[in-house]
């Protein structure tokens, strides 16, 4: 594989950049693979990459119904953080933060990781107490956290509404300085290019239509481009998890829901952090192009539509304007929706299943993008070793029936039903 470097850039300039290698190939499916990953999104691509890199398993296929990076990895709000209170989420995400910091070098692909910090705003004394507790938990797990008072927040984001007579005055906030954003498409492309170079077959426009399971063991999959034999299948399909689970006669603690995001017209640099509103669900950052990138709540009902409705968008942006009134002057450039695999406790599932050789990776809710490297790394470990790693041991499928939920928000289950 051609290395991306200043030297190769100059060299290829002499041939008008017409002789660059393809970033990844377009292979026809082979008859048999050691591992088949279903889903060519961020998590699937990362899984294949770590299978090859960490476990030396390269006879791997990624099966993607559409095109790689065309799902949620290409339509999220690019936020990366590890500001969790519970050990399972905190240690897993912080492991991921390390991978993020090294990712551009590791993949030889600029993923534009920008550790600009995230601030969660607090709007009451009680919320400040809760954030102090969360911050302490984070620091005990080695994650950086700073509790900011009102004046300190004002210094960092003076454009927020600091007037006294608003419904939700800003009392302060919790900041994770090492959190940030990254270029989401580059993450998918970087993983794809490296996985491909190590021998992984990335098979696009190929729909999985069924599974061959005999005597509780997986023997292969059926696809729109023929049958493929394999002893190990990793399911990594986010919002489509239930559709494939149905083909396996599995019912999972997952509902598929619609989440919208939007960007404003590009404006000059004003916001150099990620900020979240504490009295609702709204988050914002500014992209390198200058657009304000915004998101918030689910639409709230089961949906596979990848297309949202106005009431939720209106609700989310009302929160945004309450927090930063200048937003009301901006024009909306684009809105879009994606489908989320909402787990019943808000935490993911990375586990083996009752079918031998079938592995499950789902339940990412609002937070799939930031988990991409850690999810791929632990899922690769789980598949290669046929046992969970201690980092994903808590993300088990049976935690629901055994009562070991990881309820990070403390809101109970099915938070979309309110």
């Amino acid at each position: 594989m051609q290395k991306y470097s200043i030297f190769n850039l100059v060299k290829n300039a002499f041939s008008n950049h017409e002789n660059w290698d393809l970033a990844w190939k377009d292979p026809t499916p082979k008859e048999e693979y050691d591992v088949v990953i279903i889903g060519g999104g961020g998590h699937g691509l990362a899984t294949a990459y770590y299978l090859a890199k960490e476990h030396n398993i390269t006879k791997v296929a990624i099966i993607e119904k559409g095109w790689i990076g065309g799902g949620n990895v290409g339509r999220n709000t690019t936020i990366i953080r590890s500001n969790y209170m519970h050990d399972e989420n905190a240690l897993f995400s912080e492991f991921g933060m390390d991978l993020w910091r090294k990712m551009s070098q590791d993949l030889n692909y600029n993923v534009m990781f920008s550790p600009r910090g995230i601030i969660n705003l607090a709007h009451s004394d009680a919320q400040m107490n809760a954030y102090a507790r969360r911050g302490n938990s984070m620091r005990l797990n080695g994650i950086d956290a700073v509790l900011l008072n009102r004046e300190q927040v004002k210094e960092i984001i003076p454009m927020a509404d600091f007037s006294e007579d608003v419904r939700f005055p800003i009392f302060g906030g919790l900041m994770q300085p090492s959190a940030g954003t990254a270029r989401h498409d580059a993450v998918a492309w970087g993983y794809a290019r490296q996985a491909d170079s190590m021998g992984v077959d990335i098979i696009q426009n190929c729909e999985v239509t069924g599974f061959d399971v005999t005597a509780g063991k997986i023997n292969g999959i059926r696809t729109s481009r023929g049958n493929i034999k394999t002893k190990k299948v990793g399911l990594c399909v986010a919002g489509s998890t239930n559709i494939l689970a149905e083909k396996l006669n599995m019912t999972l603690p997952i509902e598929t829901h619609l989440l919208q995001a939007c960007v404003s017209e590009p404006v000059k640099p004003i916001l150099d952090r990620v900020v979240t509103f504490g009295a609702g669900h709204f988050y914002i950052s500014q992209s390198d192009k200058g657009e304000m990138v915004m998101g918030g709540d689910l639409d709230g009902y089961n949906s596979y539509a990848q297309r949202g409705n106005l009431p939720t968008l209106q609700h989310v942006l009302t929160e945004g304007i309450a927090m930063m009134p200048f937003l009301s002057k901006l024009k909306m450039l684009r809105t879009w929706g994606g489908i989320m695999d909402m787990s019943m406790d808000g935490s993911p599932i990375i586990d083996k299943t009752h079918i031998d050789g079938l592995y499950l990776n789902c339940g990412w809710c609002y937070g799939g993008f930031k988990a991409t490297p850690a999810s791929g790394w632990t899922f690769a470990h789980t598949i290669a070793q046929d046992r969970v790693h201690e980092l994903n041991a808590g993300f088990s499928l049976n935690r629901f029936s055994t009562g070991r939920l990881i309820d990070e928000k403390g809101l109970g289950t099915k938070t979309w039903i309110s």
Partner: protein
Amino acid sequence: MLHIKCPHCGMRSQNEFSYGGDASVKRPELNKEISDEEWDNFVYNRKSLRGKHLELWQHLFGCRQWIKVERDTATHEIFNTYKADEEIT
């Protein structure tokens, strides 16, 4: 914007309703021995169908009645609405 026909009040905007999830889920019978698995299925596990989906909504900012709605989860088309206790054939 969804428009939902409340069987009590008529056609109203989505803004007046809140969502209650899959209406096909049945609570295990009272005072009967049940397994953890049955309880698990009732509380957590969902089919989350793509296509026709029978679901509960509440006309929260209206008559406050719970209703059943038959809706397509891929197109958002609403086929039919029923009163909560109405038998669906």
